[in-house]
């Protein structure tokens, strides 16, 4: 059994062979935004989830026009193949890919294994920041079929339809309001959305080299918890970044047709007046 949509994944070898391919733009997106400055894949540009992709005022992503400007400045054309990679098993790479898809960019891929695998293979990292000729990028209307908002999440929960809580077990049970070793902040209530099953995001990747687990292993993991392809699935975590990885796995590696990421996640739900919570 192979991945349902293997075209959304490339290996480090493929990236090494396409470093100078003008049709390909390699994009680093990390949890720690300074990693790019310490050394990155030759020719790669950076997008940071916090300073590049968030709306400067509201809790939301950049507007369509702001997103167009970011892409234009990075020299990304509408038909450029984008390869995302990053630290922490590609958490934030998946988050960036999800957002680029939200604004309609079609040709996107994740580099399997991310920064860790590239480093383990002793491949080159450089500090030169490349610049590419500016483009005129045109984003599409937001694709709301991949993003869930709170009302839809409530309907999904009330209808006892599948929700995947990808946080650590202690966050799911409400013992912690954040992941272990991360600051206690963000939500006034602990627990999980009723009917959500707990499948921590990291169970989808191999710890040794950050690559995704095989299709067989992934299918057994999610189906074993009742998360199947025949229904709409909504994934969430604390702010929507860890669940982007699960969204990517369900949608592209297992081929589930209807998967949404709830980026409001626990920092919204755990503060929402009148929202049902289970512990």
């Amino acid at each position, binding site marked *: 059994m192979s991945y349902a949509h293997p075209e959304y994944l490339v290996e480090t070898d493929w990236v090494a062979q396409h470093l100078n391919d003008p049709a390909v733009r390699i994009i680093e997106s990390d949890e*720690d935004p*300074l990693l790019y*400055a*310490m050394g990155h894949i030759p020719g790669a540009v950076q997008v940071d989830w916090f300073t590049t992709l968030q709306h400067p005022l509201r809790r939301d992503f950049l507007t369509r026009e702001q997103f167009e400007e970011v892409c234009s400045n990075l020299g990304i054309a509408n038909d450029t193949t984008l390869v995302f990679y990053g630290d922490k098993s590609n958490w934030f790479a998946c988050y960036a890919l999800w957002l680029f898809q939200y604004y309609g960019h079609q040709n996107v891929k994740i580099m399997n294994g991310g920064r860790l695998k590239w480093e383990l293979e002793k491949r080159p990292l450089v500090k030169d920041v490349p610049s590419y000729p500016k483009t005129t990028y045109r984003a599409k209307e937001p694709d709301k079929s991949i993003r869930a908002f709170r009302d839809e999440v409530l309907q999904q929960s009330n209808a006892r339809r599948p929700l995947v809580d990808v946080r650590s077990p202690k966050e799911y049970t409400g013992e912690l309001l954040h992941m272990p*070793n991360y600051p206690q*902040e963000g939500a006034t209530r602990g627990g999980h959305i009723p009917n959500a099953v707990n499948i921590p995001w990291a169970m989808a990747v191999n710890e040794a080299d950050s690559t995704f687990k095989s299709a067989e292993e992934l299918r057994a993991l999610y189906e074993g918890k009742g998360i199947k392809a025949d229904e709409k699935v909504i994934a969430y975590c604390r702010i929507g970044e860890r669940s982007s990885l699960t969204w990517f796995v369900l949608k592209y590696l297992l081929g589930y047709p209807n998967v949404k990421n709830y980026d409001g996640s626990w920092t919204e739900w755990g503060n929402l007046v009148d929202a049902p919570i289970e512990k």
Partner: protein
Amino acid sequence: MKLPPKLQEIVDDFAAMTREEKLETLIAYAETFPPLPEHLKDARSKMEPVPECMTLVFLFGERQPDGGILFHMDIPPQSPTVRGLATILANGLNGCQPEEILSVPADFFLPMNLHEAVSQQRLNGFAGVLMHMKNVARKMLEQKL
């Protein structure tokens, strides 16, 4: 409240920097992050953990002959932002007396406008490092180390 002079200097410098300059300075700090001295390698059990940070951070304070404290930190190279932020505190406070360290207000860094460059979670971690430096200083005073 007067800050220790070196820390005050760093605060003033950052306050005058653009966002890009702040990031460049943090990068420079991360790049010059000192290696752990031999006797502290693999000695995390002897060190003070900082659970508020987004990565594993361990602190160790050494009392100098003049009574000042020299901080050593164990922070993985995969976390340059944390290394950079922690270096602000180490550069600003190394050599200070425990009482001086304890007198640094928890919100001393607000004028630096670090939120322009790093996320709020990281600032919580930064505040956490200071809090644990104070723990180290307090223990030294209590135990007359």
